[in-house]
């Protein structure tokens, strides 16, 4: 028995147990233990660059914004902690409510269009007919175009002396204040957002439609279902999860809208600032040498909370449908 190693021998008392722990492990178990030792560090080493980027560019700014929301920090002045004073001020700030109203209206106006229209467009360009690639590319072009260029083109078209008003005048409708009327301006900006987003979501739907079994359509057709019936009974259920994804993505993007409204409504946010969105308000109050960073951060926190709530709402609706 003396020839056996300490690890093989069962310790009979505390002294021998302690001695057993100090004994080197059998040679054969070394490598396995080596692997176990490497496991905790090596994945983290691989993940480190990514984590560093997330930490520096996402986590730190996020926590910093959260922290600033409770201060009266300005661009050149660090400021002090003011508790919930910024949020209390928001409650009484007319522009904040205008921003919240417009951002919410934007979601309500844009999301249904971006869920339905790209699906219809995808159904159109799904067919394998000669020249269809051209149309697919054409519909995708606005997605890759710069938003500034897109915005400028639409501003020219919707100007009082632009193409759209010229056409309206030609058919006897008369000019419309697309860039001067509060509601028409918001609607024009929504149109640009939908126009620019159609191609992007169309591609997502095309991928989803490719996975809808052909047999389902064929079976429905054999049962006498027409194109409309097949759309509602076969296509829509098959791409429902994609529709939820599109709804979630587009609602978050719509609530955070900035560029379209800024380009069309100008830096004041439309006449008397009536088309200001929440993100425009963040930019207006939080930038420049006299920017109120703390207050702008408080608005950003509200934007964050609402976007998270929107995501949860959409996902919850999806889960209910599943149940």
């Amino acid at each position: 028995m003396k020839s056996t190693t300490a690890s093989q021998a069962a310790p009979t008392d505390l002294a021998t147990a302690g001695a057993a722990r100090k004994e080197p492990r059998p040679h054969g178990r070394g490598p396995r233990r080596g692997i176990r030792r490497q496991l905790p560090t090596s994945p983290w080493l691989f993940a480190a660059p990514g984590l560093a980027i997330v930490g520096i560019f996402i986590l730190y700014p996020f926590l910093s914004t959260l922290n600033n929301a409770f201060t009266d920090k300005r661009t050149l002045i660090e400021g002090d902690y003011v508790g919930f004073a910024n949020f209390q001020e928001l409650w009484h700030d007319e522009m904040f409510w205008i921003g919240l109203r417009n951002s919410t209206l934007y979601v309500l106006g844009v999301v249904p269009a971006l869920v339905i229209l790209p699906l219809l467009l995808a159904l159109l360009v799904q067919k394998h007919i000669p020249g269809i690639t051209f149309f697919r590319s054409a519909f995708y072009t606005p997605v890759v175009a710069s938003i500034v260029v897109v915005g400028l083109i639409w501003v020219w078209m919707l100007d009082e002396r632009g193409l759209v008003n010229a056409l309206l005048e030609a058919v006897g409708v008369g000019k419309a204040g697309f860039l001067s009327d509060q509601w028409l301006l918001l609607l024009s900006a929504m149109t640009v957002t939908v126009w620019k987003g159609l191609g992007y979501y169309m591609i997502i739907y095309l991928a989803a439609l490719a996975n809808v079994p052909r047999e389902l359509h064929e079976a429905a057709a054999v049962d006498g279902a027409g194109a409309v019936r097949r759309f509602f009974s076969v296509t829509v259920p098959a791409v429902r999860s994609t529709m939820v994804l599109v709804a979630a993505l587009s609602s978050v993007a719509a609530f955070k809208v900035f560029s379209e409204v800024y380009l069309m409504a100008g830096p004041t946010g439309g006449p008397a600032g009536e088309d200001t969105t929440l993100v425009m308000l963040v930019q207006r109050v939080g930038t420049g040498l006299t920017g109120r960073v703390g207050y702008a951060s408080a608005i950003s926190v509200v934007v964050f909370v609402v976007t998270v709530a929107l995501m949860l709402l959409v996902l919850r609706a999806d889960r209910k449908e599943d149940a």
Partner: protein
Amino acid sequence: MRISRNPRRAVAAGAVLAVLLPLSACGDGDDGGGSTDASGKVEGEITFQTWNLKANFKSYFEGVVDGFEKKYPDAKVRWIDQPGEGYADKISADAAAGTLPDVVNVSPDLVAPLAKAGLALDLDKSASKYEKEYLPGAWKSHQIPGMDGTYAFPWYLNTGPLFYNKRLFKDAGLDENKPPTTYDELFDDAQELADKSDGKVATLANVPTIEDFGRYGVPLMNKEGTGFTFNDAKGVELLTKYKKLYDAKALDGQALTATPESTGKKFLTEAVAMNPGSALDLEKFKKEAPRLYENIGITPQISSTGKDNMYVMGVMVNTKTKQTPAAVAFAHYVTDAQRQMEFAKKVAIFPSTEGSLDDPYFTKQDGKDETRVRVAAAKSIKTAVNYTPVLFSEQMKVELRNSVARALQGKQSPKEALDNAVKNCDRLLQQS
């Protein structure tokens, strides 16, 4: 267990760090700075930042830098230029990060917050010997109400006439050689132009700005610089007249959302009959709108105070510079009479140095339109005023603009709108 415990600890440590790091940012960010004494030897390397001037004036500024380095062989200047768009944001980012260049091209409204944050050198303390070289009004343009001192060297000044479209005036039955010279005439002519063209031709394309209130004779701020006063009876009167113009379509339909660029374009395309501008614009009209150029009329700015509005540019020295003597010497060198005169001859601006405006370049006519505008503007600039209060920030401009828009749309009375604007601007002033 060991595999998961370490990462948890790392994540926890990371989270603590992430929370503490931002908190640490709330401390005093003062990293010490240079001296305010500018009397030492001019030496060392300094950085000079201009505002969108490299594209057109590269060789001029390279010449200025070379001349300075020749005069002070131990000094070196690194010239950087920033685009016009977002210039204030760039300065604020640099100021917040402690990377503001040693010598910076600024306007008075940019100097005010920098001076308040202790980043602009007080020239009354460090360079008062140069004061007599500049026009008194120009030297004062970088003084901040409520603070002692002058925080930038005055650089170039700009002003300009009102351009009007003679053809549009003639078509409306107005005498194209008798443009309006008073506010009353302006409003009458505008009404007539709108009536005769059935609302198709507006006379103005922009809502009244703070400069317009100033030119109309409205007191903009109290003497202490602690509150705005443009909601007085005269201010309400001006806004009421603008409301009438808006209702009569004598003010462009898109004026409520217009920018200086968009109003310029409206004038260029002959959609509006009048627009303020400078001698620089004549060249643009000639190139981009020859038909407009054929019919261009030039008239002085309309002002009830007898003083035109002018824009002022300055050159500020960063208090954190490690080379104060070199920075002050260079800021003075760029803005001295010789350099300003050279620059004025390259571009349609006016020097802020004493006596420069008496140069024949600014007094003698040669029959050209450009010269006519230059000579007239140079004459008016001697008495011109920068009507924009230095404490009037971008956010305040938006507040005023939004209130004016509410009044023009009839959502608020002019009095109510201006009271609201003053209240909001005062609040922003307290918070700045």
